[in-house]
């Protein structure tokens, strides 16, 4: 048995049934890291000693019957923008090269309470600003399907680690597509839940009104179980939503018993395909794969039809205005006073701030801080920032209209498969456009999931995205699960290549 190829839930079951020990599971992942990390660079930090010690402790608590969760003993990787107590958390930046958090993010706490074993922290675009994981201060991550290609971003390290078997599942964060796009590029499942579903406490903020933590996994079953573990109202996050208190007449769809939605049934489900997503910028092979997935849904009994979503071309410019504005405000805290990088030479307080930040931040981060400071500055605030917030309202309304008719929206996750390393950074706007299908979902606060749906001729995975109305994760999971069963499980990279 190749332990490393198991899904998280399969592994959890074997651990529970004493077929595999927690230490064996951990060593299986560590061996993959040993063999592949030099090629892929998925992790910024791997804490072998702490993980081994924790594996022993978790095993004892499983043996005593204290830990019974489906993820008990399963090794997990955490994106490096989530605080982990006592474990280096860099956010992919030189600014936090020495930052050791004094507390853990709520999502991390919930995973640990369920008995998951943290292996390490995954690589990411600096402060989650980027779509390729190339803006990381710790080197680019490579796509496990083809090393010359990017894994996507900003959660590229998490996506690549899951695809390569360097962990059994991972946490990512998604501000404009940062879970779904890399998941799609690496041939795995990734989900951004409805805004407010997973606590942002301990997530290093980028665009606070858009940020959401979510699962990155080998299959839809894992995705549902992980989400069930990390979701829940948290008083430490003022935007956290008490979904239990929502009294909606929805026949159970808005519940948080996500694994209950792992059912093969899309009969009668109405699925809309936005005509305006299938335009010029979309690669032909991606288009064919995504429409192939739509056909599978139809064959499974869903009612699939095209419609006009509208405002599609306005999502990216609205997003970059809002995200840059929030980033410029959120990143003010990095001043070299209490933690993180501090410049070596300065004259006074202000020169310390400015030199620290200029030396600590990379190009893309500075670009967005500058833009954000500009659009929030007096004289430009109304014309840019407020304008973008008004357009956001229009985009939300367009989705509201669509969900009056459809249960789900089916779309590509990204316009192309993973681009080559080094081909994206030279033209920022081009890079931003790679998030065109994911960004509006964040603006409208909706849940979205990506599931692998094909391969390009060049051997790179393609993902199909399903978008649901607010709190409709269970509909997404049920549809994605039905599709996965119909299409067959997606392989891991080495199976496809026939390598070791």
């Amino acid at each position, binding site marked *: 048995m190749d332990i490393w190829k198991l899904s998280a839930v399969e592994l959890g079951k074997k651990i529970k049934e004493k077929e595999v020990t927690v230490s064996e599971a951990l060593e299986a992942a560590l061996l993959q890291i040993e063999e592949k990390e030099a090629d892929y660079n998925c992790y910024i930090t791997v804490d072998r000693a702490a993980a081994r010690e924790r594996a022993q402790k978790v095993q004892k608590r499983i043996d005593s019957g204290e830990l019974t969760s489906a993820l008990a003993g399963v090794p997990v990787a955490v994106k490096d923008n989530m605080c982990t107590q*006592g474990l280096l958390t860099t956010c992919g930046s030189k600014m936090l090269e*020495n930052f*050791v958090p*004094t*507390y853990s993010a709520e999502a991390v706490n919930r995973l640990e309470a369920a008995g998951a074993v943290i292996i390490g922290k995954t690589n990411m675009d600096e402060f989650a600003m980027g779509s390729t994981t190339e803006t990381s201060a710790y080197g680019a991550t490579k796509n496990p399907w083809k090393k010359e290609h990017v894994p996507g971003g900003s959660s590229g390290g998490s996506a690549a680690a899951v695809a390569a078997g360097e962990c059994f599942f991972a946490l990512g964060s998604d501000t404009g597509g940062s879970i779904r796009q890399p998941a799609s590029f690496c041939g795995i499942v990734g989900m951004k839940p409805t*805004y*407010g579903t997973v606590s942002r406490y301990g997530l290093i903020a980028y665009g606070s*009104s858009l940020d959401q933590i979510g699962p990155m996994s080998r299959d839809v079953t894992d995705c549902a179980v992980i989400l069930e573990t990390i979701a829940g109202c948290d*008083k430490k996050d*003022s*935007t956290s*939503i008490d979904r239990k208190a929502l009294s909606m007449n929805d026949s159970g769809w808005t519940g948080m018993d996500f694994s209950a939605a792992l059912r093969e049934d899309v009969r009668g489900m109405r699925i809309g395909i936005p005509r305006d997503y299938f335009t010029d910028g979309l690669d032909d092979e991606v288009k064919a794969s995504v429409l192939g997935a739509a056909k599978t849904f139809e064959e499974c009994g869903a009612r699939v039809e095209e419609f006009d979503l509208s*405002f599609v071309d*306005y999502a990216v*410019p609205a997003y*970059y*205005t809002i995200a840059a504005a929030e980033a*410029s405000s959120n990143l*003010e805290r990095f*001043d070299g*006073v*209490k*933690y993180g*990088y*501090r410049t070596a030479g*300065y*004259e*006074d*307080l*202000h*020169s*310390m*701030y*400015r030199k620290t*930040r*200029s030396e600590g*931040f990379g190009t893309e981060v*500075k*670009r967005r*801080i*500058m*833009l954000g*400071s*500009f659009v*929030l*500055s007096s004289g430009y605030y109304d014309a*840019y920032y*407020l*304008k*973008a*917030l*008004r*357009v*956001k*309202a*229009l985009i*939300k309304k367009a989705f509201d209209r669509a969900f009056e008719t459809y249960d789900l929206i089916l779309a590509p996750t990204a316009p192309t498969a993973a681009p080559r390393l080094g081909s994206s950074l030279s033209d920022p*706007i081009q890079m931003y456009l790679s998030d065109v299908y994911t960004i509006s979902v964040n603006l*409208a*606060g909706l849940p979205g999931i990506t599931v692998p749906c094909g391969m390009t001729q060049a051997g790179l995975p393609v993902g199909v995205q399903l978008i649901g109305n607010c709190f409709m994760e269970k509909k997404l999971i049920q549809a994605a699960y039905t599709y996965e069963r119909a299409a067959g499980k997606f392989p891991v990279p080495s199976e496809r290549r026939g390598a070791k």
Partner: protein
Amino acid sequence: MANVICDETMESVAILAKLALSEEEKEQARKDMERMLDYIDKLNELDTTDVEPMSHVFPVSNCFREDIVSNGDGSASLMANAPEKRENQLVVPKTI
């Protein structure tokens, strides 16, 4: 319409952003920003006269709680992150 950002605006944005950019970086930042603003200007194609700005998708309100300490004394681990310290205090340049 192509956006042109003057030196004065660039300087004030850099002050707001608390960044000290070299001349070269400043030129690049200007070019990047002008290009982004040209792109963002696309939003002006939409008439939003009667549309309220939407900051959050769901209504948010302040979350109040009693002012009771619930965590322990974390000063040692907090101070361990300090770039410069003396006698368990952060060292900063003279501020007044």
